[in-house]
């Protein structure tokens, strides 16, 4: 009947209006363009979301409108009830055939059509609200279709009536699972697919295959994210801006302009990184709320950004980043005893050291060139030992927030997690590896391939901790 090669599992996500059907589809399809709204009837026509690999469809999810006149449809079906249960699906076909142009049943026909074309049923309810007998009408209609089906308990509100729901749903559906489209991470997505795979034997293999593909896809995204973070960090750290000087010495204004341009470019790199990452994780429509700016107008790190994303000064000193500035041994000794740091002692010692090192001195501006007309102001590369960590910290934070963000969320992106500290993700050993590259870049030397590979691996490891 059906061409076996071209048949792939299809699923129609159906249910009452406004119960999160579109949210579930959006989360499962990784597509933030799906219309989700608190107005029931947001979805008006069915819409297929195929999982495609090189153009070949592995499975397809359908978002559908909610049931609107279920009672009258069931009444019609009962009236035309066939003598045996195996003919019930035909009655539904007959209904669709007879009422295709009837505006009243447009929603139901939209949602029944994919099912009658072979789609499995994913029935969505909001289990944070009490169960009601009126749902039985919809479930009964779905039962008439004879298609494999499962129910998803979504928890929109904060009450929990899942027990009640499960008892009722259990009579109509083979599987009942909880899935929260707003909180779902990749892991939950895969778990849900694994349940779906059990709906029908024919589909098991294909869904298993799809799971493998999605995992690969996920890893691809991770790899690309890490690659972009690595490239951008290295580009920013080695960036040098040259500003032509007209006369013998540079004016104050020229100094200011050169320095402004330099900083502006670093900010641009970061913006580009964020755009690329949103693209990778398919969050193209998010409204972004700014994280503290990378560098403020005066040319310092914005204090907030540094304190959240950078290493603490103690960590920095332990990293050895500033070993040149401080005679190493004494400091290392001083910092090796943990208890030494308790209380206010920490503040005063670290404060003193930081004054010595001059953490605020971010980058050099040099005037080079002998001939007038060929003189240049050279800004960069970034010399601050903490800057790379601020950059990495911000990039990792942004990337992990997006990677963990469900596509069903329509609120603007909030980036204000005060709990995010780079020290939690990057340990001593990792820091040492990073520092090897950072110190090369500070000296304007090109790090060796192996070092860069090691660098990439550290970023990968820290990113994986976050997602």
């Amino acid at each position, binding site marked *: 009947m059906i061409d076996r090669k071209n048949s792939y599992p299809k699923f129609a996500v159906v249910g009452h209006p*406004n119960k999160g059907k579109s949210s579930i589809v959006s989360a499962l399809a990784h597509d933030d363009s799906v219309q989700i709204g*608190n107005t029931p009837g947001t979805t*008006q026509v069915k819409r297929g979301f195929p999982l*495609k690999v090189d*153009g070949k469809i592995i499975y397809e999810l359908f978002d559908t409108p909610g049931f609107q006149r279920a009672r009258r449809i069931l009444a019609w079906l009962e009236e035309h009830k066939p003598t045996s249960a195996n003919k019930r699906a035909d009655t539904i076909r007959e209904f669709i055939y007879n009422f295709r142009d009837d505006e009243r049943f447009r929603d139901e026909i939209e949602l029944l059509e994919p099912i009658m074309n072979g789609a499995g049923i994913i029935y969505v309810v*909001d289990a944070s609200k009490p169960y009601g007998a009126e749902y039985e009408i919809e479930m009964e209609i779905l039962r008439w279709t004879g298609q494999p089906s499962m129910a998803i308990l979504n928890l929109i509100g904060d009450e929990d009536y899942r027990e009640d729901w499960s008892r009722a749903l259990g009579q109509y559906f083979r599987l009942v699972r909880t899935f929260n489209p707003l909180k779902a991470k990749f892991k939950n997505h895969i778990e849900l697919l694994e349940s779906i795979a059990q709906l029908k034997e024919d589909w098991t293999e294909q869904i298993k295959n799809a799971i493998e*593909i999605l995992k690969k896809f996920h890893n691809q995204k991770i790899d690309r994210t890490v690659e972009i973070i690595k490239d951008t960090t290295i580009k920013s750290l080695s960036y040098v801006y040259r500003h032509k000087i007209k006369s013998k010495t540079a004016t104050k204004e020229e100094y200011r302009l050169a320095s402004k341009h330099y900083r502006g470019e670093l900010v641009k790199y970061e913006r580009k990184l964020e755009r690329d990452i949103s693209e990778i994780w398919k969050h193209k429509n998010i409204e972004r709320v700014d994280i503290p700016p990378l560098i403020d107008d005066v040319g310092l790190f914005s204090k907030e950004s540094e304190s959240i994303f950078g290493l603490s000064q103690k960590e920095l000193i332990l990293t050895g980043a500033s070993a040149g500035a401080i005679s190493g041994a004494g400091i290392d000794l001083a910092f090796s005893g943990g208890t030494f740091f308790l209380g206010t002692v920490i503040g005063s010692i670290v404060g003193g050291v930081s004054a010595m090192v001059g953490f605020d001195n971010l980058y050099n501006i040099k005037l080079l060139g002998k001939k007038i007309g060929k003189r240049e102001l050279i800004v960069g590369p970034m010399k601050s030992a903490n800057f790379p960590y601020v950059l990495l910290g911000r990039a990792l934070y942004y990337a992990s927030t997006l990677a963990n963000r469900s596509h069903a969320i329509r609120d603007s992106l909030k980036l204000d997690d005060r709990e995010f500290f780079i020290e939690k993700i990057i340990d001593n050993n990792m820091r040492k590896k990073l520092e090897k590259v950072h110190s090369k870049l500070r000296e304007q030397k090109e790090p060796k391939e192996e070092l860069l590979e090691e660098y990439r691996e550290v970023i990968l490891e820290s990113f994986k901790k976050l997602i």
Partner: protein
Amino acid sequence: MHSKNSTVSIKSYLDLSQLLSEYRGSHEDNRAFALKHKKLEKAPTKLLLKWLDKNYFRIDGELNSKKYLDYLLSISSLLGLIFFILGFIVGLGLLSYDGKLPVNVIYYLFIAMFIPLFSMSLSAISIFSSDRVSHLIALLFPLHWIEKVLNYLPFRKKLKGFKVNLSFKLSKLLFIERLQLFSLIFSIGLLLSLLIMVIATDIAFGWSTTLQVSPEAFHRVIKYISIFWDKIIPSAIPSLDLVEMSHYFRLGEKLDISMVHNADKLGAWWKFLAMTTLIYAITFRFLFWIFTKEYLKKQLEESILSLKGVDKILREFKTPYISTQAPQKEKHLEIVEAKKEVVIKKREAKYQTILGWNFSKDEILLANDAKGIDGAENIWAVGGSNSFNKDLEIVKNSSGVVLLYVKSWEPPTMDFIDILEMLIENSKVTRVEIYPLGTIGRYYKNEQEHIDIWRRKIESVDSQKVWIVNHDR
């Protein structure tokens, strides 16, 4: 506009690098391309060149490679000509015989054999040595200096407009390859001048050196030199006699008598010199030139894979393109603007009819109790498991002011709206107050969000009879 690239060349290398600076393709396009050329899966370079061919049209403006190759061609032709003339003149100079002093074959051997071998070894060292060493070696090549000078000539301007993205290593190889070509041309000029001089004039060759070298020893050296042709053209090897005969001493007052007598025999040297030039300066050079050409090609093949952006494309060629997006876009919903304020804070004191949409009768009584609403004449459950016809019956029997409980969290369906509209049409019904209740767990307290949903829907019904009660807040 361009010819197809089947192997890596300077042209394809430069074109690709130019294209990559403007366009790198999307994953979807690149993967689709790779799938179309499945046969080339294992040959990334070939695939890349095919990709270049397909995307030529995307390069904005003139091809950098064209400018560069034009420049290379004009400068090569000019230098080629110069080297040819130089070779010819050097030949004429070396071979000019004034009838007194014979032409010293050692000079000639120096130019036609020793220098070529030396310069080829230098080139070979330069090819395989690090950048820094190559820089030093380059200083030894005359071409390096000629090029320096030429760069100040008008060509310079031509090159200014664009930047050619050739690594040091590649430009070095290109330079060395050109050097071999020019040296080859030089040697051809040299050989030509030798042949012309032999035909046109009568040259007497001799040999002389400040070192103490016996004719026997020199003859041995000559035998070694002619090792490549001693079997084929034995006549191109001077005999020991000839070697002895042509030995002369520059500082001696007069020439050896025998030399003067055998001046015609001395001319027999030319075959040897011609063969030396042909083998050492021309054949060897030609082979070495071919080698540098091939080596350059190999290096280009390696370098093309490390061009910026190539790794991305190659990765995309290999990785399946996965997408989960819906092909068609969704239409945006229009929002219906409010016509009248339908939400009221104060409900009616008494109702003739109380209905509960999707409530059971017991639940209605419970709600009445909780909300302090006196019982009405008619209390009915609607919706739920009622049939549509049963609801029609109820609607028909309703009258006066109607209170209609609904579950606030369940959005109004069209089923509900159908019943509501029939209530409105019923002339006995004077007013319908919809009362959205929260869950019992919340003591019927509803949420503003849900009231808003109900409000929007009821506003769209647009009836003067219908109101929503929002009593709690």
